[in-house]
């Protein structure tokens, strides 16, 4: 669901000099649409309750993961649409009416005296009210036995639509579960799926680890939580205990119309193995690695970067481990780690000169002087002295207490820590970080807590409804306004209550 476009904190009036930091936050928020993939259409087709496939809707359990890996098939020889009532059409919609309260600390606001502006000050801005999520139309299923599809037109809360997910998948090629090919725009093969996340707030409705970008960094292409355009191979054992996948995607962060690099691609690789641990349940450990390159120089026309013309590719990588651990039928914990690294050019703000928004559009017109706008590595540009590869480490811990298939408690702790800033000790005129000299070692670090519960008053194979309650708190180092408080930290919190339903 494209929730974040609606659940994001109130628009912050950051000072110009901190627009870069704000852009990072905006990317964190705007780029993370969250189409849930709980499909009553599947439940209606197969007569299984939501709980058969979902630990709690929309998060998959092992059976649901296998169903997905089989191309949304039970493999019961009745998967092809020819076996369905001709009136059956696999459509599900999802939308969430909510009430939420957003509180953003250290916002720079104008001050007035006698109706005249007197300057600015820093204060906390809190707003609350009733709101809506975006709307998702999921259509998915099989075109024929072993040929699957997914089409997800998704809107933000204003009704602006884009294609969040579109793919065709050839399943069980050569009658083997080890050969499945997917083409289109799809979620990367993350075991902890952001598209099936159980939380909905602006900062808690995404995995920070999947979207982290250092302050001042211009590389938006390494966000593994975003749906990407590409081709994926996936294979798994019959019981799904062993899974592998490899995808090649355009380095466009899922943007259509070849809007970014002229010839830049990214690879995403995963592998995992599950083990039967008796009464503890089935445990899974795995890894992922994203290795890619993206453009830093875009041809210009009248000084404006041209979409699809990006060259001068530079590299980046994200890699980590994933563990899904069950402690009996009620308690589970998922751990995701990440080590990320960007080429120094990205660290200095080069990369997304087009300002794509992840949905095929652009985020804004970039008219401010650098470094607030992503930079363009035009011929003759020199990397500032002291520039170095920004690197960081991230950790996500998400635990659940499943009281019953109808009631789940959620807790998440995430931390993203820079291990090397883009602006090194030799920097005097760097354009990364906050610009200028060496960055503080903790600049941009993020800590986030999310707790909540979802209660489904009924559980059938026809529709889903969850009473959703959530609290998120996010802390980021050094990206607040500078008025008297250099390197101020930002604390943002949000409370959200809603009725999350699909049919």
């Amino acid at each position: 669901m494209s929730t974040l476009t609606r659940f994001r904190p109130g628009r912050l009036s950051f000072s110009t000099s901190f627009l870069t930091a704000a852009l990072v936050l905006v990317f964190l928020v705007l780029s993370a649409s969250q189409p849930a993939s709980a499909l009553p259409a599947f439940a209606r087709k197969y007569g299984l309750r939501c709980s058969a496939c979902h630990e709690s809707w929309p998060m998959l359990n092992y059976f649901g993961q296998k169903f997905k890996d089989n191309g949304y098939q039970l493999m019961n020889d009745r998967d092809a649409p020819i076996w369905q009532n001709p009136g059956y059409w696999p459509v599900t919609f999802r939308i969430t009416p909510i009430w939420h309260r957003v509180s953003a600390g250290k916002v720079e606001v104008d001050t007035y005296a006698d109706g005249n502006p007197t300057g600015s000050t820093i204060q906390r801005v809190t707003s609350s009210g009733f709101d809506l999520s975006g709307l998702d139309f999921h259509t998915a299923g099989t075109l024929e036995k072993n040929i699957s599809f997914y089409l997800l037109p998704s809107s933000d809360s204003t009704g602006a639509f884009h294609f969040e997910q579109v793919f065709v998948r050839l399943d069980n090629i050569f009658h083997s579960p080890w050969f499945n090919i997917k083409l289109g725009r799809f979620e990367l093969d993350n075991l902890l799926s952001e598209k099936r996340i159980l939380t909905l707030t602006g900062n808690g409705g995404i995995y920070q680890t999947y979207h982290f970008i250092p302050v001042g960094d211009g590389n938006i292409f390494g966000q593994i939580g975003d749906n990407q355009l590409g081709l994926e191979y996936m294979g798994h054992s019959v019981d799904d205990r062993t899974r592998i996948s490899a995808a090649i995607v355009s380095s466009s962060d899922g943007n259509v119309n070849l809007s970014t690099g002229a010839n830049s691609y990214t690879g995403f690789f995963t592998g995992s193995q599950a083990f039967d641990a008796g009464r503890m349940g089935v445990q899974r450990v795995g890894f992922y690695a994203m290795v890619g390159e993206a453009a830093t120089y875009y041809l210009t026309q009248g000084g404006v970067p041209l979409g699809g013309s990006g060259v001068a590719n530079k590299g980046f990588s994200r890699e980590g481990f994933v563990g899904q651990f069950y402690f009996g039928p009620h308690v589970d914990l998922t751990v995701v780690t990440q080590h990320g690294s960007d080429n120094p050019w990205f660290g200095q703000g080069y990369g997304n000169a087009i300002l794509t928004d992840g949905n095929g559009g652009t985020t804004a017109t970039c008219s401010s002087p650098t470094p607030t706008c992503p930079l363009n590595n035009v011929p003759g540009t020199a990397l500032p002295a002291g520039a170095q590869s920004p690197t960081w480490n991230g950790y996500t811990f998400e635990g659940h207490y499943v009281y019953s298939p109808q009631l789940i408690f959620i807790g998440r702790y995430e931390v993203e820590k820079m291990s090397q800033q883009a602006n090194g000790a030799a920097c005097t005129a760097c354009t990364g970080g906050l610009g200028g000299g060496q960055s503080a070692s903790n600049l941009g670090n993020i800590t986030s807590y999310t707790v909540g519960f979802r209660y489904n008053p009924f559980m059938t194979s026809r529709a889903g409804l969850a009473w959703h309650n959530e609290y998120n708190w996010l802390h980021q180092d050094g990206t607040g306004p500078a008025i008297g408080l250099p390197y101020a930290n930002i604390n943002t919190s949000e409370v959200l209550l809603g009725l999350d339903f699909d049919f």
Partner: protein
Amino acid sequence: MGATAVLALPMSLWAQLTQYDLNARLGAESHVGNTTGHAKDAALPYRRFCVGCHGPLGDGNGENAPYMQPPMYQQPRDFQLGVFKCRSTPTGTLPTDQDLYDAITRGFDRSNMPQWNTLSKQERADLVAWVKHFSPRWANEKPGTPIVIPPEPEVTPERIKAGRDVFARVQCWKCHGVQGMANGPSASTLTDDLGRPIAAFNFTDGSRPKCGDTDKDIYRIFMTGLDGTPMPSFADNIKPEEAWDLVFYLRTFMQQKSKEKVLAKQLGLKPVDPNAPAPTQ
């Protein structure tokens, strides 16, 4: 047929079964290999995975049961009857815990019962115990003794031809058709023990037999019968060595590549003639 005998159990044993009665049986256990399953531990997984079809009382009246209409789909199993198709035990007897475990793991092709092989072994064993707690049969009877399956002999042209004679003699073709296409003269009249229409197995459409698709599974199916269905046990009509011949012959119908198909083609094997006198034993 054993299933008929089971249906003759006093109706009061299960017709009025309540949650209260079931709670009294929560001590039911299963033993699968070295894993002991406990019914009391399966309440959550049953509610999560199974109740939509099999219902809270295990009577096959889950919310989706009305939409599973035979012969396209089979109705969910009524666990209260304690009658099961896929067993290693003689007809009319209870299945072993391993049989139930295998059924949960394997699922049933051409039905809405999927393979639950993603569940842990313990969860599946617990579910076996849970299934048992629905029927009073387990309180009063022991599971049957699994039939003995002799080692599989080498496939030969002679054995395939002998299998065809068995197919003709015990009149498999009456339901399954002379070419295994489920179009025998009796096929359209078949009903299960509850009077619901049921289809004979079509060997030729590429689907898998419900109770497993290894040679041993096929042997076991016709030697134990599928209780609750018109498929009887042929244990009294087919000798063990003849049973293997029949397995080889049935393989010649199936889409999957096999040595049997190659040999049948070399032999120019013709389908049985339903009008010919049945071969003698």
